[in-house]
């Protein structure tokens, strides 16, 4: 039976091999070649007689190729960019609802020297592969959390710190719960596990308010769906900045934005918060945050045993944009405590 399987598989390998050779580019040495070639298995099932007509040395190529392709696919899906110092502690920055990885541009430079920085766009947003947005997989935040976990797995990172803004703070909790072993810490910027008020819980919004948000989204996409650019124009004094930004920032597909808005604002992950316990967690709370009020931040702090809570001077919901210095300072202090604890 096993021998038959090998025999059947051979043509598939042959075609893969052909693909591998057509490009004539040798595969880069990397994580792909860590998978052992199936040599032992082959010898076993066929009684030591190699069934493959291909030279021994090339046999691993067809096996490693699909894996490399999968890795590439994941990185392309989430428009992953890596910066900073390779091998240093990785920081994975994940943007919130409404924007993309551009959100972090005032923050990441401060960490480039001594950290490996991973920037990504949630599936469906920014420069990600929009075709990969699956209304069902991404019908809950878990789908996005799994995406981020896949990115970290594809990069082979260990001890990474998840820095999530807004809804992605909770996505961070879900990602940590999914694979605790790959994470070294969690930074939650303006988190909220549930935006809608509930009995004994003040999230800040009523269900109807979310309809208003959808309405606002809808109104801003109508007629110019694929181009946020004509609406949000650049700084007349710094046209180069405007040009760059309008092309990359906040350009989201209207249907996806609407769906993600509902997924974000109608989800309830209060019961998932304790799952982050055990992973060093920092909560950043802004003053006068219209999206995640202080009470909510404190609620998150209370539900994640061992978490740290920092009340920032920064106002609004996006301290990473409005008060990058303070944001950097607070995260840096957390990272150094993390280093001391581990070191």
């Amino acid at each position, binding site marked *: 039976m096993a021998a038959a399987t090998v025999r059947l598989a051979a043509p598939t390998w042959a075609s893969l091999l052909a693909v591998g050779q057509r490009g004539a580019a040798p595969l880069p040495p990397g994580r792909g070649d860590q998978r052992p070639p199936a040599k032992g298995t082959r010898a076993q099932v066929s009684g030591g007689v190699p069934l493959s007509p291909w030279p021994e040395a090339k046999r691993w190529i067809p096996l490693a190729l699909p894996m490399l392709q999968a890795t590439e696919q994941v990185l392309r899906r989430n428009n992953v960019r890596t910066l900073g110092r390779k091998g240093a502690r990785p920081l994975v920055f994940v943007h919130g609802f409404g924007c993309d990885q551009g959100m972090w541009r005032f923050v990441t430079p401060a960490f480039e020297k001594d950290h490996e920085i991973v920037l990504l766009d949630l599936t469906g947003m920014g420069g990600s592969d929009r075709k990969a947005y699956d209304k069902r997989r991404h019908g809950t935040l878990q789908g996005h959390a799994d995406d981020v976990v896949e990115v970290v797995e594809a990069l082979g990172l260990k001890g990474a710190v998840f820095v999530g803004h807004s809804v992605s703070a909770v996505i961070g909790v879900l990602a940590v719960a999914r694979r605790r072993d790959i994470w070294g810490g969690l930074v939650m910027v303006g988190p909220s596990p549930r935006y809608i008020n509930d009995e004994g819980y003040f999230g800040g919004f009523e269900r109807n308010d979310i309809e208003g948000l959808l309405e606002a989204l809808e109104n801003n996409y109508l007629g110019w769906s694929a181009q946020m650019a004509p609406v949000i*124009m650049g*700084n007349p004094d710094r046209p180069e900045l405007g040009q760059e930004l309008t092309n990359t920032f906040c350009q989201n597909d209207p249907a996806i934005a609407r769906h993600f808005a*509902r997924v974000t604002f109608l989800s309830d992950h209060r019961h998932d918060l304790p799952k982050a316990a055990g992973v060093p967690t920092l909560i950043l709370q802004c003053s006068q945050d219209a999206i995640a009020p202080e009470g909510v931040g404190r609620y998150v702090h209370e539900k994640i045993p061992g978490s740290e809570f920092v009340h920032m001077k920064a106002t*609004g919901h996006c301290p990473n944009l409005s008060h990058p210095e303070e944001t950097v300072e607070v995260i840096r202090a957390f990272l150094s405590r993390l280093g001391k604890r581990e070191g």
Partner: protein
Amino acid sequence: MAGLSADALESFQDDLPVGLVLCDPDGLVLSANARVADWLGKSVSEVEGHLHLPDLFTVGSKIYLETHVSPLLRMQQAVREVAMEVAGPQPRPVLLNADYFPTAHGPRIRLLMVDIRERRRYERELRRERERAEASEAHLRVLAEAAQRLPRSLEVEATAAAVADLAVEHFADACFVHLRGQSGLELVASALAPHAPPPLDRLDVGKLVDLEQAVEGQAPIVDPELTPSRAAAAGVADGALSPHPWGFACVPLPAGDLEGCVSFVWSGIDAAPPGTLLQDYAGVASLALCNAQAHERARAAVRSREELMGILAHEFGNPLSTLRIQVEAWRRRVEGSPDAAHVQRMMESVQRQLDRMSRIVADMLDLSRIRAGRLSLALARTDVGRLVQDVAQRQQPQFTIRGTTLHVEAEDGVDAVCDAMRLEQALVNLLSNAAKYGQGRPATVRLRADERILRIEVADRGLGVPPAERERVFGRFERLEGTSEPGAGLGLYIVRHLVGAHGGRIWVEDTPGGGATFVVELPRQGPDARVDAARLT
């Protein structure tokens, strides 16, 4: 502004049909015109120095401001024509322009808002139309695929499985198909989307809703919020279904031949499939299921007819054998008596009829064995040359009584691995056909072989078989034109199966000069070496 005093300028600004606001970088409103205060239902003094930027807008717009507009304003220093809604006794749709504005006291944010109530009404209408069109397009796509894919299988269970599979492919996280069986509504098929939590498969839909009620009442039962505790009561452990929310619907198959229902479970925000889609889907599913059921019933009827035939053939076989032996014994007994010649003739006639009946019964037995897949061969290396000669010799009388002859072209020693009895049966069949349909003209049986393949040709010089009939003659109960000879029309059907069981092939072609030639090709090394790919050259 030239030509206007400060007071006049303020009054000019207040009267403009636009809202004007100036904020500090933290968003505190420093100055606002009367129009804005009017929209907000407040006085200018209640606004200035008291409200922050987000306070100017309705909650939905406030979220949009915080998540989209403010970040952009921060990054690009300006935003233009963003649709927002100003809070107030009557929320007011506006287009917002904003930018950072340097002053002697530092940067300020200035806002200009234009009232767009009329335009909004029109846009809303447009949007609703578009949504309707999009929804029905998606809806039609699913139904079109269902109509195409579901009828592919002709078995109820496989069709039910396809119904469940297609649903999870397109719009459900899990789908369960119940059909009326002997013990009420039984689960026939279920499917789970790849991303759905596996425990969902254990969901006992019958505990979630009264399926009978759904089917009897012909009305869908929908539960837009399937709570974990209800799911737990239906067999899915508490916690397995988080995160929320989950929904459920049980839709009865439209009243018809087949009673049952299709149940759907979905998860995620905005995931509830439209009710019309579910009902239409159940309609298409019902059609395919009813078809499959009708087909299954028809096949079951054919099967039971064949079973009955097998039983009858078996039951007839034994008494027939006994009768033949008895007739033979009587014939011997009357030998030498005064009426011997007369009785002999009668007995011969009886014996012929008995032989025919025996042959038909044997054919029917073979048929039922073939249909049940129970035809077995006793393989051995056989001298086919000798076998052809022997059979031809025994069949010669059939030709003699029709006033003609059978030519034999076969040499001893051409051997093959085969079941000699079965090969003889096939040959007898072909030769008696050649006699029956040969129009009293001579026929030929010819044996040829190479190392791998052995070919037997039986050629007559009768009417031949028209090309269009050449497949049909090998069917069950099919008879050729051109003879009044009796027969059940099973002979060639059985021959084809005997040849097939040997790994060989049979077909019919023209005899040069007129007539039919039946060609049999067999692999000489037995059934494992099929002759599909190679033919005798």
